[in-house]
């Protein structure tokens, strides 16, 4: 089993630089990068996106999901970097990368981890439009 690396960052990050520094030489690597949209859920121009988390529980939940999924999919090294704080449109929010011997395992494991991360890790998004903040009630659809 490969190393599982989970990081919650207050400062902005460059996903491609993170991947460049990530160890491992597996045959297959699946990568997902999520960025802040330029429009809010209601279609208005988005000024900023605020992300809050529950420190401690959040990192543990993601680690727990990653361990289970790594075992289920026989995946290798896994990397999760997730932003918190105030983000501007276009800024990376999340990077999920999974290594495996085969593309199927890497892609399935990566997709499953991202879905669990969205629904089972204590993060909350607040959209800011025209200086007014609105907490999101649910995630965007797949």
């Amino acid at each position, binding site marked *: 089993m490969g190393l599982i690396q989970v990081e919650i960052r207050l400062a902005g990050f460059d996903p491609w630089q993170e991947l460049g520094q990530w160890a491992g030489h597996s045959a297959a690597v699946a990568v997902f990068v*999520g960025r802040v949209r330029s429009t809010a859920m209601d279609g208005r121009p988005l000024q900023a996106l605020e*992300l*809050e*988390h*529950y420190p*401690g*529980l959040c990192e*543990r*939940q993601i680690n727990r999901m990653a361990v289970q999924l790594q075992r289920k999919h026989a995946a290798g090294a896994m990397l999760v970097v*997730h932003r918190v704080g105030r983000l501007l449109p276009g800024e990376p*929010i*999340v990077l999920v990368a999974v290594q495996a011997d085969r593309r199927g395992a890497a892609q399935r494991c990566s997709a499953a981890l*991202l*879905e669990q*991360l*969205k*629904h*089972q*890790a*204590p*993060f*909350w*998004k*607040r959209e800011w439009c025209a200086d007014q903040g609105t*907490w*999101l*009630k*649910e*995630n965007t659809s797949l």
Partner: protein
Amino acid sequence: MLQVLLFASLRERAGWSERSLSWSSDYATPRAVWDRLELGSLQGISIAVNQELVDADQPLQAGDELAFLPPFTGG
């Protein structure tokens, strides 16, 4: 003591993020604490005790950290 934490929209609805309650048998479970906070329905709210997700009827003990968490919207 019982440490109660609220996050995101719940924190804004309540107007506070953290509160220490003197331990009492009235606070036997997260559900019992929630009912006394008068913050509406518990439906859709996740609960963590000492940073582990639990159900609303898990017994509480003095010194616990109890957090009420609105629906998650990360990723």
